[in-house]
């Protein structure tokens, strides 16, 4: 498994978002009921919260604060970019907006909806 230290900031944010969505699922009554019917039970919630804290602490406070504000507003902070379009608001990005370099500690946000862009 890739250690956290080798992930760039966008990958850490994605990791954080995936954990947040899983924790949200685990607290959702409908999802839990369905998991239960399928024979699946939640036992590691606290452990997952610990992992979430570890990932969050590896992200610069300025970026983490931005992520958390957007996540609260939209239910997701990161959105994919495909063919130059933000898949959060479906607005075409200006031609100057490109994927940050792999090693970059910077992120790009959609100028239209403000969500953090993730190139896939």
């Amino acid at each position: 498994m890739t250690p956290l230290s080798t992930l760039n900031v966008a990958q850490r944010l994605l990791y954080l978002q995936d954990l947040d969505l899983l924790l949200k699922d685990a607290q959702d009554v409908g999802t839990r009921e369905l998991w239960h019917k399928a024979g699946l039970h939640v036992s590691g919630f606290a452990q997952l919260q610990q992992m979430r804290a570890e990932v969050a602490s590896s992200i610069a406070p300025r970026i983490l604060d931005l992520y958390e504000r957007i996540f609260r507003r939209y239910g997701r902070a990161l959105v994919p970019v495909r063919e130059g379009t933000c898949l959060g608001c479906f607005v075409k990005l200006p031609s100057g907006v490109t994927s940050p370099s792999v090693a970059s500690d910077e992120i790009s946000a959609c100028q239209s909806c403000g969500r953090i862009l993730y190139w896939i």
Partner: protein
Amino acid sequence: MTHDEAGSASGTRVAGFLTPEHFLPDLRAVNRLEALRELVDAVAAVRSIREPGGILRVLRDRETLGTTAIGKGVAIPHGRSLVVARPLLAFARSQHGVAWDAPDGEDVHLIFLLLAPDAPSSRTPYLEQLAQLARVVALARNRNRLRLAHDLDTVRAVLMS
């Protein structure tokens, strides 16, 4: 639509995601993490997913939340992420069995990997597909057919049953 009709429609949809490249009739892995890696590598090899490391992390974290083994030799690892472009199902069979922390303590022989894009619109179908898979494998005759299946058509037929 009746409950049975809804279940059948869901089964048809989920079976449609299963392609020959996503059928691993003889998994080599002997533990859960190795099995997840082997499955993810297989689907990444045919470019069904990008960023396999991210997908593996999602699946590992889901296992941390609680095992996806449901007993009677079956596991349904599953996850959603924005790095998944479209819904995906892979099916693997292990002849020797994989330790998966199952509630009944049995090793796992039948593994369904279910992945979906992270979009609000994909959440409900994905959960329905998970429920449908669990319903199918709850029947001993279906599990037996899956363990003996020689080809993908048989697997698909069981999923649509």
